[in-house]
């Protein structure tokens, strides 16, 4: 009844806030992407160059974010570290989301036994504790970039699969898919032509969320010393290497942590903006 009115207003206001948040998020994420790509141009010093005699030095003109436990420039380390943190997470997310979406829509479009087998397999995977699985993988295969990417992808595929499958099941029941099926279309055509194009937006949202989780997973692995190996360093390893600096309040330990935090918050804001925009599209369409 008339109760719908205030709810509608509230939604609209929330939507307005979302759009602004989305822009802020996009700016943060964009900055970090740029930093990762242009690290060699932006970094004032070399990636692993020891450029100062002071360890855990404070912020200064020469070392804008101070120096680390070896006397290296923290700003340069963070800029180069962005390549590992963002690059690895992006690759793993793409792998996880990609296989999740393809398998999920395949399960929904074909139904029956294939659906049951895939769903059970994913249920099994999802029941494994993520960090423990990662530790086992790294212990067994050693830590290398491909192993890290594969591990993170395996851990986050089941979640992507579940979301994609439930989306695809909904779309699968829509009349245009039924018409395609009555026309005699094959399963893969139905999947790529009818179902997948309608999943793009929600899947992108999910992609962002998964990206955040993977950044955090890889950072924790590095923090435990099982991630990216020295001399290369991602943000997680920077935090670990400089952990003694915490007592002195050294920027060397705080700044990489701040970098991780801003990246994840930025991605979250961006997703919120996305979802809000999508809702507006829906509302206008009706």
């Amino acid at each position: 009844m008339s109760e719908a009115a205030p709810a509608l207003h509230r939604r609209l206001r929330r939507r307005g806030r979302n759009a602004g948040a989305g822009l802020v998020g996009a700016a943060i994420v964009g900055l970090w992407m740029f930093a990762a790509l242009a690290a060699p141009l932006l970094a004032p010093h070399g990636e692993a160059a020891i450029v100062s005699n002071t360890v855990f030095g404070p912020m200064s003109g020469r070392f804008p974010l101070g120096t680390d436990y070896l006397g290296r420039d923290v700003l340069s380390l963070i800029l180069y570290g962005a390549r590992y943190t963002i690059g690895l997470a992006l690759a793993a997310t793409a792998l996880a989301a990609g296989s999740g979406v393809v398998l999920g829509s395949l399960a929904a479009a074909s139904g029956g036994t294939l659906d049951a087998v895939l769903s059970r397999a994913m249920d099994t995977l999802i029941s494994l504790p993520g960090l423990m699985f990662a530790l086992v993988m790294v212990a067994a295969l050693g830590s290398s970039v491909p192993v890290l990417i594969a591990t993170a992808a395996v851990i986050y595929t089941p979640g992507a699969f579940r979301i994609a499958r439930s989306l695809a099941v909904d779309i699968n029941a829509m009349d245009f898919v039924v018409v395609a099926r009555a026309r005699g279309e094959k399963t893969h055509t139905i999947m790529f032509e009818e179902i997948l194009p309608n999943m793009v937006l929600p899947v992108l949202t999910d992609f962002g969320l998964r990206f955040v989780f993977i950044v955090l997973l890889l950072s924790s692995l590095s923090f435990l010393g099982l991630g990216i190996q020295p001399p290369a360093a991602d943000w997680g390893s920077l935090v670990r290497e400089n952990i003694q600096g915490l007592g002195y309040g050294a920027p060397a330990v705080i700044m990489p942590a701040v970098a991780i935090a801003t990246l994840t918050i930025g991605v979250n804001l961006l997703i919120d903006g996305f979802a809000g925009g999508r809702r507006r599209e829906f509302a206008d369409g009706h």
Partner: protein
Amino acid sequence: MNLPMDTETAVEVADLSVMAADSAGARRPIVDGVSFTIARGEVAALIGESGSGKTTIALSLMGFARTGCRIAATRLRVGRTDVLALKRRELAAFRGRNVCYIAQSAAAAFNPARRILPQVIEGTAIHRLMSRAAAEAKAIALFHALALPDPEGIGARFPHQVSGGQLQRLLAAMALITEPELLILDEPTTALDVTTQIEVLRAFKRVVRERGVTALYVSHDLAVVAQIADRIAVLRDGRMQEAAQTSHLIAAPEHPYTASLLAAAAPTPRAAPAAAEAPVPLLDIRGLVAGYGAVRSSGLPTVPVLHNVDLSIRQGSAFGVVGESGCGKSTLARVIAGLLPPARGSIRLEGESLAGRAAARTREQLRRIQIVFQMPDVALNPARTVARIIGRPLVFYHGLSGAALRRRTAELLELVHLPTSLAARYPGELSGGQKQRVNLARALAAEPSLVLCDEVTSALDTVIGAQILDLLAELRERLGLSYLFISHDLATVRALCDEVMVLYAGRRVESGRRDTLLRRPVHPYTELLLSSVPELRPGWLEMVPPVPAARGIAAGMGGRGCPFFPRCPHGIPDLCAREPPPLRMLAKGAEIACHRSEEDLLALQSQKSATAAMPPPASVSTCRELQCP
């Protein structure tokens, strides 16, 4: 806020405009300079197509503007309240206390997890009007007045335990319990079957008259409005076209738009091309049994829907299937399209047996049967352009590509009277009628022999729906198509089809040629269905004999007897409940499934119409009031 009381007019609206901001930020009126008054105790109706601004006007009487809209009026008064002067807090008290709103979907207004009675009396507690016991007593009195079954006990049920028509009446009780100064009914019966609609309308009319409720009835259906409203205002594009007393407006519409609405409300039969007499029927179905759920050991599905259905569609004919919601019409279409394999029975396409599953049919067989769905919004892939949607069957069945594909796509758009410039658009950028035309064009692209039309006009406005019917009739003549035309609306079936089958609970109860079947129904259910379609004349509602009280669902359930027995006025207590009714060939060429003979049924019919001409004894008082003003 309180205006001087005017004892005569309950609602006064002068120069009401509602402005909406479009995406570009430009302001555009969706309601433009509308003025009207409603006298105390009067039922006024707003009528118009969707998008004409009816609901917007109704909502502004509650001081509610949709997001991005602004209301302006020189006067907007309900009772003693100046609606535009109300503050936020006062508005909340005003709605639900002074004005109540009954929407199309009663299910959305009830909380499915709570019992009905507390929800019905909730308004009295919010506005602190009376004690709980008094409110409950009042609710039960309203249930009685609304002719609800088991008025004392129904409040203890949950919303899903009552039917859609009952829920709609319970919603009316919820609205009336606070004795509002104005009751707004927004398409309250549009989602109901005709047979249910008539009961709900009757109940509404009775309470409104007995309690002197002032009401605004919003609808697109002139025939329904003619039964209940004293005055009708016709809207189009936010402007008032014409307002007059009901009988006057219907007998002598002044505005041409009103006349076109009247014409669309009673569609004339489209001329049927002479069908060539082919030796084999195009589609022949024998002994079809189908349903949903796991197949049991008996070979029958857990939820059987269709029982032993036979039908035969001649080349070039339009075959109508009518029946209430849930009787299995769509299931029939799904079986024919190969989307739901039947449990038993045979389907033949020009003598050639068809496999149950689409995947097991040949591409040629698939091409010859195409299906078109009801909801244009979900029938087209929102992520694909019109050209690609129509092009897909051309590629799939005919292997077209490049210039040939583009040419054929343009031809098809032209065939359904759409401009070729639409080809680049996405479905979201089309109107409902346009979407339905694209939907048809996609089916035609396959060059089918038989098109299964599942409620193709039901989601459209009457005028747009009539245009689609015209298009279907035209295509049939030009392309020699055959249709299986499914609808719950007898008027559209009558307009297009030359043969009709009536389904009840998944069983064929009567079938025959349109003119004989729809003009002289024989089966009691067909008769009920036909007599429930509102006619465009005031007073029709009082003339229809009321449906006898249901005999209790248990009487007809579980047994193998006639499924219609619980509602049949002519049921033979022992026989009909126990024995499946035999098929009878009628003199006029139709077939019915009934224990009674044709002569019997016709005699009973004429008896009933003779008694109906006099007011039925139960409601003498109300009828007298209405018929002798």
